[in-house]
């Protein structure tokens, strides 16, 4: 079957099997290997991408289901060489060690900050409760999200001050 979807702003049309999962479509067909493929059972969350602006586990969504919809992956976060504040937060606060869970964490935390620009530690823990990190013990991930929240709000205030 043929599927057409927009990924990070670019429209792609490809011939696929109906049973192909979105995670494999992104990685194997579009070569967007930033999205990781982990437990395959929607438990670990390394495959989180956005579907129409909402985080979903792409190992449990058919590529065909995303047809006609908009997908955003970790490759769509940075603006050229300029990292998204959430990426910069992970860099500043050691939000990763091995990096395997990072793409999913980034997509979930970006969505969290878009909805809730000033999340508490509890709200961050709840947001990432469907994702597993075996390196950090989560504390540095939480610090990373807080870093991004604080720096985004500072940046906004600076913009307002300039205007």
């Amino acid at each position, binding site marked *: *079957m043929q599927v057409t979807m927009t990924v990070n702003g670019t429209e792609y049309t490809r011939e696929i*099997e*109906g*049973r*192909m*999962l979105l995670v*494999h479509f992104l990685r194997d067909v579009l070569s967007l290997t930033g999205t990781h493929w982990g437990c*395959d*059972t*929607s*438990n670990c*969350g390394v495959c*989180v991408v956005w579907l129409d602006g*909402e*985080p*979903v*586990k792409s190992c*449990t*969504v*058919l590529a*065909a*289901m995303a*047809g006609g919809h908009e997908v955003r992956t970790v490759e769509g976060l940075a603006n050229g060489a300029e990292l998204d504040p959430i990426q910069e937060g992970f860099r500043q606060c050691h939000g990763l060690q091995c990096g395997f869970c990072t793409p999913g964490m980034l997509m*979930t935390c970006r969505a969290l900050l878009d909805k809730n620009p000033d999340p508490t530690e509890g709200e961050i823990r*709840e*947001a990432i*409760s*469907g*994702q597993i990190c075996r390196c950090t013990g989560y504390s540095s991930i939480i610090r990373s999200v807080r870093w991004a929240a604080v720096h985004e709000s500072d940046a906004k205030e600076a913009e307002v001050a300039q205007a």
Partner: protein
Amino acid sequence: MQVPAPFEYERATSVDQAIGLLERLGSSARLVAGGHSLLPMMKLRLANFEYLIDINPLHSELGYIRLGDDEVRIGAMTRHRELLESEILADVFPIFRDAEKVIADPIVRNRGTLGGSLCQADPSEDLSAVCTTLDASCVIRGTAGERVVTMEEFHVGPYETAVQDNEILTEIRIPRKNFRAGSAYAKVERRAGDWAVVSAGAAVWLDDGRIVDARVGLAAVGPNTTGIPEISAALRGNEPSEDLFQLAGAIAARSCDPSTDTRGSADYKRHLADELTRRTLRTAVERARS
């Protein structure tokens, strides 16, 4: 790599068109909503179909929460996140928000639906216990029209429902009673987002300080979620008290039929059925009074 066996993907454009497809394709086809129960089963080849009909496009038709004077109607495509965030539902039946907070995780809740949860008919499934507690009925549509069944009729057995091959669950209806109402849900799980070791829901209706009606529903202690009419009979007409909750807990423990598995021993699960019944009744009464 886990992938489902090959199938043809079809996309529904309306409820009637989906029923037409089911009528034509029969038992070789299955509807998929959020997919977070069905796709994992298909990956494990526990479920295999020649056709999969994607009903996500029906969210605009079947995703709603409508508050009426005598009942609340919820569309089958209403997603977990929508149930969790609905202020209307939290106000009328707070049991939904209690349950949704502990169903899977926020990302899965973005996709999973009420109808999909009920149709999976897993004995540990939380929304089935909520709907059993609230005495909900299920609207099932086919070419011949609609029929409405109770939760007891809906769940035929584990992973088996009254929905036939050429039918679709479209709506859940929950009766409202003209009394002070309170409801609550509690679950014991091994880790965040897991299936219940045991969970319990309770709903009470008070008039003049006395219990006019009360219902308890349990998950993970039998082949299907279990409503316990004996508890309702024991509570009706009485003033709420710790002694009464204790009695209800004891009835719950002896009325359920848990089995020993990796989540716990049958004895432990009976203990939980008792304890969670008491806790949820206590909270439901507090809410009905406030």
